[in-house]
């Protein structure tokens, strides 16, 4: 579980996060949603430690990140997997080498065991063996996301972060990626945090949703609660399209 308590973050006097508190539960797909510029990316980067917060606590199962030394943060990060918006695969390595990389860097296992683990992860995300030797530039965007997920879970992380996992993907592939993240979260009991403004994802896998509005937590609930919320900012954001307005009316 990750707990964020009274977090503030400013950039050059611009107060981006204002006293944000939230709980991200283990074994659930926790989603941070909000409009562009609302502060959700800053919140996620602060939780990971890429931004140093001004005030507050960020606790990974009781371990407060802002109090840690860099060497301890590095150790903590070995428990973290991350799926980046653009996949961030190492383009000088093949698909298999990308998944092998964290294992070779940190796993005490033998070469054969690492190879088995890499194959397991790649097959778990439904990648065919014929693509293992290809470079990231030779595979589709959806496949790149799968490889990135396989790399993120290679070291059996306790925490998984996904920054806009469906960015640049078609609706069908987006759904597949969402389901994959959801399955992995439940199967391995991971604390997953997804940063998204894709409402299809929210409706599909949002088990714990945190809505950020102008740097403040404006609402927290799940995908079922969202239809019955009396929060104008949230309703304007989530049910902006006619289609979602119809879905809301149907559910009410």
């Amino acid at each position, binding site marked *: 579980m990750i707990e964020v308590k009274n977090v503030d973050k400013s950039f050059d006097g611009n107060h981006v996060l204002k006293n944000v508190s939230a709980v991200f539960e283990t074994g659930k797909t926790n989603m941070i949603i909000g409009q562009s510029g609302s502060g959700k990316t800053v919140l996620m980067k602060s939780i990971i430690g*890429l931004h140093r917060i001004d005030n507050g606590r960020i606790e990974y199962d009781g371990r407060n990140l802002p109090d840690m030394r860099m060497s301890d*943060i*590095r150790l903590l990060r*070995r428990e*973290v997997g991350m799926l980046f918006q*653009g996949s*961030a*695969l*190492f383009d000088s390595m093949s698909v298999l080498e990308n998944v092998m990389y964290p294992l070779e860097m940190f796993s005490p296992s033998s070469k054969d065991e690492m190879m088995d683990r890499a194959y397991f992860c790649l097959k778990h995300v439904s990648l065919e063996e014929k693509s293992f030797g290809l470079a990231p530039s030779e595979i589709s965007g959806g496949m790149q996301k799968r490889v990135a997920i396989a790399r993120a879970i290679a070291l059996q992380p306790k925490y998984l*972060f996904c920054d806009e996992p469906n960015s640049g993907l078609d609706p069908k592939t987006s759904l597949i990626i969402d389901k994959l993240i959801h399955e992995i979260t439940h199967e391995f009991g991971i604390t997953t945090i997804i940063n998204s403004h894709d409402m299809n994802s929210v409706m599909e896998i949002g088990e714990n949703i945190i809505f950020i509005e102008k740097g403040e937590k404006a609402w927290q609930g799940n995908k079922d609660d969202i239809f019955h919320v009396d929060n104008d900012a949230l309703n304007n954001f989530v049910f902006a399209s006619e289609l979602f307005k119809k879905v809301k009316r149907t559910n009410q």
Partner: protein
Amino acid sequence: MGLISDTGKYVLLMKRVFQVPDRGRMFFRQFPKELDKLGLQSLPIVVIISVFIGAIMTIQTKLNSANPLLPTYTTGLVTRDTLLLEFSSTIMCLILAGKVGSNIASEIGTMRITEQIDALEIMGVNSANYLILPKIVAFVVMMPFLVIFSMGLGLVGGYLVGVFTNIITTADYLKGIQYAFVPYYVFYSVVKSLVFAYLISSVAAFYGYYSYGGALDVGKSSTNAVVNGSILILFFNLLITNLMLN
């Protein structure tokens, strides 16, 4: 203010670079790749430029020393000393600052803007150490060989002038390049090349590592790496020459 801030950032980056690698075998896997990419792949340009400059220097020296009072071996001697003292270390390093410096800055800069460096950091990898240390060590190791190779090829270029033209006899040229040879000049050049190799690779890595934005910004980082690397080479050339030859 910017200079002080950048110097501080550079020092802090180098502090992260010069640490024991997380996994030695990963360093030794990267190291030969960098030797090939930064060193061996620079050989063609070193060969071409050294041979041609050696030949041109011989012709120009001969034309400017057409005085019956000067010994006939003067051309070979001047060509040799110019190659040893300045061309093969400083000028060659300035050329390599363009080739290798832009290569390093653009590679690391692209990794930065495509979040590959963030991915390394999130994994708990010391990205500066993993990405930059093999490049610096490989280039520092390769540079003396490139410089000595360039010296030899420059002298060959001068010799070819003797063979293919009537400007100078090969006997006079060979006598000139052996006359009053000072081995210390080679040592001086090698010392300079080691310093320049460190400057080229570390400055380029610095600009690449702190790239931000898009492709245009990576281009700017690459340009800054080459320009500032070249300026530092000239400054340190003056400093080392004053220390070692004055």
